[in-house]
Structure formats: structure tokens, C-alpha cells
């Protein structure tokens, strides 16, 4: 019985919308959201660079060469070298790995845990909801960077600790957004119908509520990605993120970069461009995705 209702529901919705293949949808996205497509392109390029770092990087990102300190950008070293004579371009290429790794894992962990808590909170309601909401309120009382700073300072500088420090402040934010959607989904007649038909709770949550909160979850995830990459850069810049000699973009900007600025202005310049470009791509893409998925913001 439950399945028949589902089938009727899906056929009704697909009959209304014109059939679009995946390729059509991509073409439409590029045409209607040129900025979003540009963002997607930047993200893809960054992923390719990160994946092929071993092939693309002209030098070893960790290899110090004291004969070549502060070499100007040249045909040998396109972006010059740093105070240890390491090739800046190679370090930036490897840095894409760190940025993407921290960005994706931190937002994924934060949004998924937060999303789960949000769904549980909305579906169970009552005391559980009240308790979880208060807990989220407490976490929300701390500005994101301050909480991340406090957690990172306790855990010590290491890449996996940075992921935890950035993920925790995301949890309450994702929980809040997903909970709000789940609450309204829960009020739908079809949820009432399946529960009247005696469907077990886990089935209602997994089959009927979770699929309907996927859109806000994905919006939240893409929206947090850029922020997570920025947070990693900021923590590393402040000396609480990845430790030397890890080629983290934020770390490359800390301390020495500015003190050698007059001698080697490329040191503070290029890592910043890399961070900005990466975050810019994620933000552009996230923005357009939100516009496309959130019907309220569509041009009426």
C-alpha cells in the first residue's frame, strides 16, 4: 500500500515537469547561471590540480634548497621560491590537496552530523527536540572562528585537528536549517498517511523525510565549503592549523611571508590568490546552486 502511494506521487510530479536529460540540465545551468558555471569550472580545475599534484608539480614541495632562497619568478621557478628555496608553484599545487581535503571533510562531517541531529530533533519533537535545540543554541553562542580557535588550541596543530575544529561550529548551523525543513516536511499529508499505514519510524525518517531535506543539506554543504577553506587558511595563518612543512596556503602567508615582503613580494601574493580563487569558485557555485534549488529566489 505504502509503495503504491509513493508510485502515484512520483508519477504525478514527473508528469508535470518536462523530461530533461542530465546533459540538458547541465546546459541549462550554464546558460542561466553563467557565474555558477564559472564557479564549477574553478572547483573542477582545483580538483584536477589536487589529484594530479604529483604529475603537475615541477619540484618536490618539501625539498629545501638553500642555494635558491628567495629566487624571483623565472622560467625555472614560475612563481619563485620561498625562504627555504622551495618552489612556490609546487607548494601551491600540493596546497590544493590540503585545502580541498579540509574543506570537504570538515563541511561534510559538520553538515552530516548537524543534518542528522536536525532530522532527529524535528521528527521526535518534545523533550528531545527541546534538549537538542538548547544544545545547538549553546554552540551557536560562539562565533565560528572563535570556537574553532578554542578547539584548535586544545587539540594542537595538525591537519585532522583542524578538520574537527572547523566541523564542530558547522554542526548547529546545519542542524538548524535541516530541522526547519524537516519540521515542515513532517506536516505533509503523505507522512501522516504512511504513519497511519503503520510504517515503522525509521522507515518514515529514511524514506520520506530524509529525501526531502536533501536540498537544504546540499545547499548548506556547498555554502560551508568556501568558509571551511577560509577557516583552515585563517587557523593556519594564526599558527593553529597545519604545521610546517605542510604546504598549507594559510601557513605560507603567516609570519615570514610579510617580513620578507619587500625582498620577495611573490611570497605573500600567490598563496592569497590561490585561497581567494578557490573560495571564490565554491561561493559562486554555491550561490547559483541555492538560487536554482530554492524556488523562492527564482525570478518570478
Amino acid at each position, binding site marked *: 500500500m505504502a509503495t503504491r502511494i509513493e508510485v502515484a506521487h512520483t508519477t504525478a510530479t514527473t508528469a508535470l515537469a518536462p523530461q530533461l536529460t542530465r546533459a540538458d540540465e547541465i546546459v541549462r545551468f550554464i546558460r542561466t547561471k553563467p557565474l555558477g558555471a564559472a564557479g564549477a569550472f574553478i572547483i573542477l580545475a582545483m580538483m584536477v590540480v589536487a589529484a594530479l599534484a604529483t604529475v603537475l608539480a615541477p619540484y618536490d614541495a618539501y625539498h629545501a634548497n638553500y642555494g635558491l632562497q628567495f629566487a624571483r619568478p623565472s622560467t625555472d621557478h614560475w612563481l619563485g621560491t620561498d625562504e627555504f628555496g622551495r618552489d612556490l608553484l609546487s607548494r601551491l599545487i600540493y596546497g590544493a590537496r590540503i585545502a580541498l581535503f579540509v574543506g570537504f571533510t570538515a563541511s561534510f562531517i559538520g553538515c552530516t552530523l548537524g543534518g542528522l541531529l536536525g532530522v532527529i530533533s524535528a521528527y521526535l519533537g518534545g523533550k528531545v527536540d527541546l534538549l537538542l535545540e538548547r544544545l545547538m543554541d549553546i554552540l551557536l553562542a560562539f562565533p565560528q572562528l572563535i570556537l574553532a580557535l578554542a578547539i584548535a588550541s586544545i587539540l594542537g596543530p595538525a591537519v585532522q585537528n583542524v578538520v574537527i575544529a572547523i566541523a564542530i561550529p558547522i554542526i548547529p548551523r546545519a542542524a538548524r536549517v535541516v530541522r526547519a525543513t524537516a519540521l515542515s516536511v513532517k506536516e505533509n499529508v503523505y507522512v501522516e498517511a504512511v504513519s497511519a499505514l503503520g510504517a515503522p519510524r525509521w522507515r518514515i525518517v529514511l524514506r520520506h523525510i530524509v529525501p526531502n531535506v536533501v536540498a537544504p543539506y546540499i545547499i548548506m554543504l556547498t555554502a560551508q565549503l568556501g568558509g571551511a577553506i577560509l577557516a583552515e587558511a585563517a587557523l593556519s595563518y*594564526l599558527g593553529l592549523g597545519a604545521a610546517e612543512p605542510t604546504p598549507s596556503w594559510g601557513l605560507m602567508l603567516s609570519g615570514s611571508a610579510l617580513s620578507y615582503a*619587500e625582498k620577495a613580494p611573490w611570497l605573500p601574493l600567490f598563496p592569497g590568490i590561490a585561497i581567494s580563487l578557490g573560495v571564490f569558485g565554491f561561493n559562486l557555485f554555491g550561490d547559483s546552486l541555492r538560487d536554482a534549488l530554492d524556488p523562492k529566489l527564482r525570478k518570478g
Partner: protein
Amino acid sequence: MRTYVLKRVLLIVPTLLGAAALVFVIMRVIPGDVALLILGGDSGQIDQRQLTAMRHNLGLDQSLLVQFGTWLWGIVRLDFGNSLWTGQPVIQELLIRLPLSLQLALFATIVSVIIAIPLGMLAAVRQDTWVDYAVRVFSIGGLAMPGFWVGILCILGLVIFFGWGPPLEFTPPWVDPWANFQMMVWPVVTVGYRFSAVTTRMTRSTVLEVLREDYIRTAWAKGLRERAVVIRHALKNAMLPVITLIGTEFAFLIGGLVVTETVFTLNGIGRFVVDAVAHRDYPVVQALVFLIAFGFVVVNLLVDLTYAWFDPRIRYR
């Protein structure tokens, strides 16, 4: 309205208690023995008697619950203990640095509003044209550039082209406005530009939403000129969420202060946090993280109350 205010004010009490508990757990329970850290835990050679005395001084020999109670009582009396680094009372150190951060935050907010509201409105009115794209690239770019990097670029430009060095001592504006201006202008612009990115986007999307309302169609139908429709009818109604955002982005501002003050070596609250973390100055970190959360919660409360005052529908929900 009165019951609403009372309800909201009472609601922040458990939040603040929870925040205090969380800070206590993160800063005091997880790092292990603070006494060991103070006596130089890294060196390895520690006199046992000294350690016991230090634990007693810090109250670490008491139960966790008593310690938490003592800390809470300290918060109520604004006594956050002494800094491990300077030995001065935390609250005193804090008050020295507060004016600078407040000035930076206030001016940066003003700069951001001056940039954001006209730009956001323009982008909304000319949606999906090159003006809109330019404004969005400008604002998304502002969000994409790390605050500390914008600061670094600023300093880099000033140092290379003007041989400028950052002044070291903070001069309050009422003592010497010109010296104060010279010191604060670049940090203010740095934080303000990034902050404006957030506000511009918000202004754009709320104006867009309002432009679809019936009363805007009516205004057009009456034959009003574009300027009248946009400024008198749309912008006025779109401002409320923007004002709210300016309040709630306090968190964003604090994050901006932390990195910007570090870049410009300004001796404010943000840099105080970073230095305290670097020195493992737990009483200071603990106090600052809690006070920042306190400020954040209070600002949010004020924003909510203002909102409710403007929009009576909220009070009755």
C-alpha cells in the same frame, strides 16, 4: 511585547550557563593539568611540592563542580583571575584593549553599510545584467579573500609605495584624531570591505524579494518613477532583514578583528585572543571566549527584540 521581552531574556540564561560550561570543559578539563603547563610542562623537571602548591593556588585540587562554581561566581563579579603571562587581572588587560576593537568594529560597520546598501540595491534592480554580475563578483570576491590577506596586501602596498610602517601605540580618537585616523584607516577599510560583501548580498536578495510584492506592482501601476518605487517603497521595506544581518554578523566581525588585528599588529581584543592561545594563557582564553559568546548572545537578543518591535507578527508566534 513585555511578555515577549521577558521570555527572550529568560531564554538566554540557560544558553549562557551552557556556554560557560562548554568553555569550562574545553579550556579546563580537556587540556589536562594546567598547573603542570604553568610550571613549564615541556621541560620535564618539576618539583612535586611546587606542583601541589600551584594546584592548590589555582583551586585545581577541588572537585570539578566546585571549580566550575568558583568560575561562575567569578564571572558574576567580573573576576576572571589573573593572566598567566602578565600576572595582571584579566579584566584589566581586557579593558585596555576594548576601545580599539570597539572603534574598529563600529567604523568597519559604517564603511560596510556605506558600500553595501547602494550596491546591493543597484544589483537587485538590474538583476541579471552586467551591473548585477559586477556587484556580485565584487561582493563574492570580498568574501573569498581571506581578511588577513587583504590586510597583508594593504600593508604590502603601503610599505612598497609609501615606505609606511604601522604605528605601534594606540591613540584614542579624542586624544589625537589624526594619529588615530592614520592608524585605523587601513584596518577599518579591510574589515569594512569584507563585511560589506555579506551586507551587499543580503541587501540584493531582500530587495529582490520585496520587488515582487503586490504593493510594488501597485506603485509601478500608479505610474511612479523608478527612483520613487525603488527607494521609497522597496528599499524601506527591505531594510529590516539587512539591519538584522548587520547585528547578527557580529560574529563575522569578531572573526575579522581576530585576523585583522593580528596582521596590523593592533593591540585589540582579537589579537589578545590569539596571543593568549599562543602563550597557553588559559584564564585569558577562557574569559575571552566566554565574554565574546556573551556579547554575541546579547547582540542577537537585541536584534531579535528590535525586529519584534518593528514587526508585531513575530511577538505572537
